[in-house]
């Protein structure tokens, strides 16, 4: 597939407005970015001086990293900034070949205009293999004159040090609840959506500092065309069929691991629930389980944390969730 062409076709200014609010309300300029004042100030300085180093944006999802990169590009290159940038996602293109071919091809030529370098935005860079990172490090040096990199990652630790040392590092923290609240309320006002106070509090709470999730949640809740209440929000957030999940946990604790695993499979493959959602739902259910004492709960929560982390690291969802079921079965028996 010709991605470059698609890109232009889809995102060109064809007058089409995408009614998905995360995109519709994605900030266009740096000043619009929610929170992150220090980062924004530094980026604006790059715009002012029209020069920038390679950058590394790190922080949890939904805190404005990709948006900041796109805003920076727009302010540097103007509205047709897309011709000057290459967007890559390491989670889909993690091989060394991408570095060797696509990047080199793109970075080889000079950019005619006020700013002499192009920009490569590499999202989810922590998914690059170590070989690819080594290759990237060389590429970054070779093309310094024609190209700037913005690497975006969730975990700085997974980026090799030589790359870290070649970049200006920007840390994006989770957004404070107050900022998420403001933004959500503002969007609701733009869209003329009625919300209750409790609904907003719930959205902010569930999002855990991830603005993207908060906006998605708001739009999904608003799509019913009625006032957004706390109940609706909770229902949306519980996209995981809760009953099935509870059933799986019960079965596991009764020692019927095989049946519990079957239920989890149904959630994952039949309902297509995201494993991360499953694990987080389990977390929210565990504390209220009367049949466990606090020590047992702690043990389970520790395992949940471990598994959540592993899933982010690319482990197999079903195997990891099954491990949790086995822990539940054992905790109850001992």
């Amino acid at each position: 597939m010709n991605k470059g062409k698609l890109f232009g076709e889809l995102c060109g200014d064809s007058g089409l407005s995408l009614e998905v609010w995360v995109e519709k309300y994605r900030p266009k300029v740096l000043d619009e970015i929610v929170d992150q004042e220090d980062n924004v100030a530094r980026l604006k300085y790059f715009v002012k001086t029209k020069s920038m180093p390679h950058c590394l944006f790190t922080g949890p999802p939904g805190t404005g990293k990709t948006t900041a990169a796109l805003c920076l590009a727009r302010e540097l290159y103007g509205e047709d900034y897309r011709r000057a940038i290459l967007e890559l996602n390491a989670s889909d293109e993690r091989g060394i070949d991408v570095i060797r071919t696509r990047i080199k091809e793109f970075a080889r030529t000079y950019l005619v205009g006020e700013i002499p370098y192009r920009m490569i935005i590499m999202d989810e860079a922590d998914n690059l293999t170590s070989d690819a990172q080594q290759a990237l490090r060389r590429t970054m040096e070779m093309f310094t004159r024609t190209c700037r990199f913005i690497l975006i990652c969730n975990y700085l630790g997974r980026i090799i040090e030589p790359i870290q040392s070649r970049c200006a590092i920007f840390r994006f923290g989770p957004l404070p609840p107050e900022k998420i609240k403001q933004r959500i309320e503002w969007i609701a006002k733009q869209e003329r959506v009625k919300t209750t106070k409790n609904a907003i509090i719930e959205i902010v709470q569930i999002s855990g500092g991830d603005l993207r999730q908060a906006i998605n949640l708001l739009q999904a809740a608003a799509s019913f065309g009625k006032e957004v209440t706390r109940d609706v929000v909770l229902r949306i957030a519980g996209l995981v069929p809760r009953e099935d999940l509870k059933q799986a946990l019960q079965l596991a604790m009764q020692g019927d691991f095989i049946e519990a695993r079957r239920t989890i499979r149904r959630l994952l493959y039949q309902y297509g629930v995201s494993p991360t959602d499953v694990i987080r739902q389990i977390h929210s259910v565990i504390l209220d389980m009367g049949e466990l004492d606090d020590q047992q709960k702690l043990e389970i929560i520790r395992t949940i944390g471990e598994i959540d982390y592993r899933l982010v690291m690319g482990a197999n969802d079903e195997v990891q969730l099954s491990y949790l079921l086995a822990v539940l079965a054992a905790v109850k028996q001992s």
Partner: protein
Amino acid sequence: MPVRAEVWAEKYRPKRVSDLIYYRKKNQEALQKFVSWMKQWLAGTPPTKRAALLYGPPGTGKTSLVHAFAREHGLVIFEVNASDQRSGERIMRVVEESSASRTLTGAGRVLLIDEVDGISPREDRGLYGALVKAIPKSRVPIVMTANDPWSRSGMRPLLQLCELIKFERRSERALIRILEEIARKEKVSIDKNALKALIKKEEGDLRSAINDLQALAALGRHITAEDIERMGQRVREYEIFEYLRRIFYAKSIKKARALISSSPVDPDMLFEWIYENIPQVLTDPRDLVRAMWALSEADILRAEMKQRQYWTLLKYVIDLMMGGVAAAFRYSKPPGFVPMHFPERIRILAKTKREREKLREIALRAKPVFHVSTRRFLTRYLPYLRVICSNDPKARNSLAQALQLTDKEMDFLIGKTREVEEKRPAKRVRRRARRRGSRA
């Protein structure tokens, strides 16, 4: 190549009992036993044991015998396949219905339950119980086939109610004669040595041998023994079952991991086999949790290994997945015979492959629009988009336009339909084909 390829194994199923070629005395006796059991039914004096269980290795002519006999005597076969859902209820219903009246044409009936030991014990929890109840009062012959009826403890009460008829692997001579006949009719030119090699490779399983022959015929030239060799060894299920048992019951990590060199499947697939069968063997939760812990550790290392291409990690993955389960075995009772299962995860993933491919294709189009990887699009956006687009036509249209999706694709994306493109019947045919494949 013919436009519509027929499966030879079906095409050349014997039409009459006399078409069945058995050289072994035991199989001749089995045939006689079955025929006389059936004849008691036809004579209107049902035998005391109202069910017959034909058992033996795959491809030894069990199902063929039933079909040939029914055809010859004008009997209608009611087939309940083990892969039908809720077989228990269904069987009760069929037994009742067929006992109540004869068919409209007055023809007699046979109830055939193929692969009765191949059922999923969970889904068909009620099957064996229903059979135990249904058999003594049945007014139609109930015929079952199985590879290894003792592999399922749930089947034991059933066995006492059945006329047990054992089939053995067929002799090489019989198989060669059958294959030669088919080769002649299909105008396939093949060496006698090649036929021998084929039979040896398939260990007496006629259906597999016929399937192989058909595959080889596609070469469109004379077939030699070398061609057979090149086909490679098909991994037989019982081979992996045996192998798994050796891992699970290995006394030490060292012994367990030493087995890796003789693994019939690659490490990834072995992982799946072990993962699937852990709970069958390690029945005590204390053992189960330790084995699952080791496996989950192996899993994360495996992910790391692949993502970063640190292939040196493989040895630890193997230690954990093979040694981990062997070491976990402590409190669980050593069972006599544990049935092993094909990895369900792989089965599900194969079944939903087209759907997942389609989703990925759509996710690729969504990438430049949402600035996220395909994986994150599917896990973090799609659940919300499904709700949004189901409720809000405006959002739906704009998304369809942005991603250039047809109405049907949009329905698929938001989960309104599971159809990708093809119509359902086509899918069912494929599934049946696969089932046949797994039986072969």
